[in-house]
């Protein structure tokens, strides 16, 4: 019998108090998990339900709610299902349990998150080494409150003569000249 995400969710909910399932497609759904249960959920999914492939681990900055959302997307290749685990952690101080023992490749993702979002993963190998940036001292660049345009204008010399238009305003000027 073909397993589907609802069955898996039901089995998961019987064991752990995870959140509701939000189905995006027949083969993709997202699930809210409290930070403390993440490891148990991942272990259950990996060892019992066959979600052995960690597709990606990334973060979304919900600055309005002072939270980071960590997305752990795991995949079951034989049943052809994807499940995204959404973990909300506070933005300051941002810290999360490392999962590099479950998937060695997660260490790389965690290094990137550490550098780009400033999220700490205690125990993850080589976490504080420079990964992509070198000698970065400003706000971690992927945070929403880092303004890349402003930083670029302040740091890098500009060639005079370059103009930037706002597309909407520019097209209005082009198509309906005279109208304000």
């Amino acid at each position, binding site marked *: 019998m073909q397993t589907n995400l609802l069955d898996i969710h039901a089995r998961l909910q019987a064991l752990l108090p995870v959140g509701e399932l939000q189905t995006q497609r027949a083969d993709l759904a997202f699930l809210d998990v409290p930070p403390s249960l993440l490891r148990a959920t991942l272990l259950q999914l990996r060892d019992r339900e066959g979600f052995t492939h960690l597709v990606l681990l990334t973060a979304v900055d919900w600055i309005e709610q002072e939270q980071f959302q960590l997305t752990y997307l795991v995949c079951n290749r034989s049943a052809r299902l994807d499940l995204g685990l959404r973990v909300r952690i506070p933005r300051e101080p941002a810290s999360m349990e490392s999962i590099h023992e479950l998937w060695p490749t997660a260490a790389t993702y965690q290094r990137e998150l550490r550098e780009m979002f400033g999220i700490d993963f205690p125990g993850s190998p080589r976490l504080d080494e420079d990964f992509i*940036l070198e*000698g970065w001292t400003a706000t971690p660049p992927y945070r929403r409150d880092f303004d890349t345009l402003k930083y670029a204008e302040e740091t890098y*010399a500009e060639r005079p003569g370059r103009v930037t238009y706002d597309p909407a305003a520019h097209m209005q000027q082009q198509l309906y000249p005279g109208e304000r």
Partner: protein
Amino acid sequence: MKEELQKRVVKGPDGVEFEVEPLRDYYCEALPQVERPAYAQIIEDLFNWARSESIWILGFGTGCGAIEMRPLMTPRFDAYRYGIQWRPTPRQANLFVISGYLSVKTLKRVIRSYEQMQNPKYVVGLGSCTINGGMYFDSYNTIKRLDQYLPVDLYITGCMPRPEALLAGFLDLKKLIRAGKADGANHYAENFAWYKANQKQVIQDWDMPDYNW
């Protein structure tokens, strides 16, 4: 400063202890010299002709433009016909093709490679990102004007430039060299302080001496 660059005492394999000062031992801090044409005009003309007909490109693909360098060296475009070829080491190369956008991390390596090249040396900037930032005008990690950091002899526009554009650019560069106008290395040596100030402004992690060939 990084730990491996600090002055320290090291015990060699034969048990002798000696002092290592990496910045002094591994790098040379003598500033670049302005080296003017030294011979009679007719000999310099001969040399300039030879330089223009034998352009050795440093094999350093700094950005996405590097992908069009391979077709340039293969049957369709075959730049070998014009005396252009690759050299894997900066010591033997004359031309540095900055193939596209430069992130700050690469810029540091580019400066080092450029300083290791021999005078006369030329720099060609490829693509709109070396001219004014191009697509990445608002990126926090790429420079917008290459000529602030290195003396550029020639720009080839496009995103990315086609191999035909590259060939045309190289022919233009040949004309510059033959006329003796491609004098970037001396310009770099003359305005060394200005270039270094610009470079240090963007490279946060400046752990090398000012001149390191």
